[in-house]
């Protein structure tokens, strides 16, 4: 009985319990007023930044292609979700998930349509073509009638709650995490490591590139939907290149290819500017300095490719405790890998 949580069912139930537990703790903190109203509202941007960062990490970190138009997909999903919920009049708890699903589908469809031609290119060229598409999406939204043009959409129901954001974050993390760990994920990672070798080994690279791109765009759309129903307005000017760059900063700081890193840095980079309100002028200066510094001194990001796993951590702790109890033996390194 060396490892307590080695088997999959155990791990799934452990994760399910901890997810529910974390939710209960958050809700308890809000109910008892430990987190005040303002701090509770902060949880929502943290949530959609996590979704944006994790979804961008799928293409930038795991697929190894750098798209610079993530904000474009976010805006497409956001507008689709907002238009859906504005025209439908359903009960909130039905309307929002449906709107988010619409956001996912529309953004993913855009991702597929844009991704298929764009993914023929590599490296810098892919980055630039996605940037071009992102800008075109913004200009088109700016000029369309039903998106409200430059005025944007107003009066979208404020339906995004902490609970819905939490559910969406969990679903995103679960789907992208499971995708990465699966056979398909290994195929995606093999493209990052060496595309030519992957192709030579019989991996349909175009299919997997398009898959990663589509899934990534879809979740950006969900984040857009949450954003729209949180602010209750959609303004096309807030989805420019700067927004894409901000998401990229989160991903790069957390570590390209680490979901855990994206989550941590999304939380940190959303709270930091709020905590440093007095320094709000310096926020982006500090961001960009951080970005350059991280790239020069630790190009792998803060977490590298480290992934956090509750089961592994507990196993490690257990074996360490056991080692300490049996005394002598060895030093601190309880080998629970």
């Amino acid at each position: 009985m060396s490892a307590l949580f080695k088997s999959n069912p155990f791990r799934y139930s452990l994760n399910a319990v901890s997810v529910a537990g974390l939710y209960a703790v958050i809700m308890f903190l809000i109910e008892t007023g430990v987190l005040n109203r303002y701090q509770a509202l902060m949880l929502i941007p943290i949530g959609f930044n996590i979704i944006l960062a994790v979804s961008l990490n799928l293409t930038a970190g795991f697929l190894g292609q750098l798209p610079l138009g993530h904000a474009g997909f976010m805006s497409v999903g956001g507008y689709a979700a907002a238009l859906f919920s504005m025209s439908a009049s359903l009960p909130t708890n039905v309307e929002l998930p449906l709107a988010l699903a619409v956001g996912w589908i529309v953004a993913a469809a855009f991702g597929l349509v844009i991704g298929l031609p764009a993914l023929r290119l590599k490296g810098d060229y892919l980055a630039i073509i996605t940037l071009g598409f992102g800008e075109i999406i913004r200009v088109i939204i700016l000029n369309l009638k039903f998106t409200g043009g430059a005025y944007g959409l107003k009066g979208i129901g404020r339906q995004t709650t902490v609970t819905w954001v939490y559910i969406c974050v969990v679903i995103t993390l679960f789907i992208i995490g499971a995708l990465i760990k699966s056979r398909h994920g290994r195929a995606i990672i093999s493209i990052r490591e060496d595309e030519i070798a992957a192709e030579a080994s019989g991996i349909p690279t175009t299919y997997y590139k398009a898959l990663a791109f589509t899934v990534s765009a879809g979740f950006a759309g969900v984040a857009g939907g949450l954003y729209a129903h949180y602010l209750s307005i959609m303004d096309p000017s807030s989805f420019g290149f700067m927004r894409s760059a901000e998401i990229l900063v989160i991903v790069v700081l957390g570590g390209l290819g680490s979901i855990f890193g994206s989550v941590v840095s999304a939380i940190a980079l959303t709270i930091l500017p709020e905590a440093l309100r007095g320094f709000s002028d310096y926020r982006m200066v500090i961001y960009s300095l951080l970005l350059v510094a991280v790239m020069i001194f630790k190009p792998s990001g803060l977490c590298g490719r480290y992934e956090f796993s509750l089961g592994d951590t507990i196993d490690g702790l257990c074996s360490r405790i056991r080692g300490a109890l049996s005394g002598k033996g060895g030093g601190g390194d309880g080998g629970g890998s």
Partner: protein
Amino acid sequence: MTLLYLMINGLQIGSIYALVALGYSMVYGIVKLVNFAHGEIIMVGAYSMWYVMSRFSVPAWLAAALSVAICSVLGMFIEKIAYKPLRNSDRLSLLVTAIGVSLLLQNLAQLFFTANPRMFTNIFAGTVTIGERQFSNATTVTIAVSTIIMIGLTLLVKRTKIGKAMRAVSEDKETATLMGINVNNTISFTFALGSGLAAVAAVFYCCSYSQIQPTMGGMLGLKAFVAAVLGGIGSIPGAMIGGLCIGIAESLTKGYISSKLTDAVVFGILIVVLLIKPSGILGRRQNEKV
């Protein structure tokens, strides 16, 4: 007459794009980096010119020369600090660093000069009459000076020693080192040259649009980059042709379709070029080696 008018306006903005595109193209040719910070160099050029002129009331030519000097030094400095440590690492990290530098410059400008647009007085006031239309002096000076600069640059790259070194380094860094070329100095020179051209473009841009703000470099830089890709990135004559094409396309869109759609047309051109002929009009196709 409208067509001629639009074409000349297109040539004017196209010359500005071409000057900026040259910087992108030379830098890409030599270090294989899409220098996202290049657009911000234009902004720095514009602000330094405006600052020097409004604070110290120096003559315009001196201010322009100063801003070219400031931008050249800044370009070299950025290369030394941010890009040189990463020269042998992943292309992706280099690209992200360039985005970081671009964000940094933009936000520093916002910090120092606030986000409010500043008015810039046209230093080439007055008009000339060609045919039945009147054109501002800014237009004619921009086109004339850009043409001279481009001829000069072509001669520099083709005929001089440093030009030869630039071509050698972009061809193959290691072999160039073996031939006794100082690669670091050549790269620094390329960055200085490109940034200086961006400053010249900034001066012309300010004269015809008379408004500067910290974010002005973003869109201008992106469009110039599209021009560089259209002409074939890495190719100097390509950058000139690309710049002029983009300028004319933009001007015709403004005149005949809608001024709101110019950005969409420019990026549409980018996408079509990348999909049909990623090497651009004059670029060389690179075969993939396994």
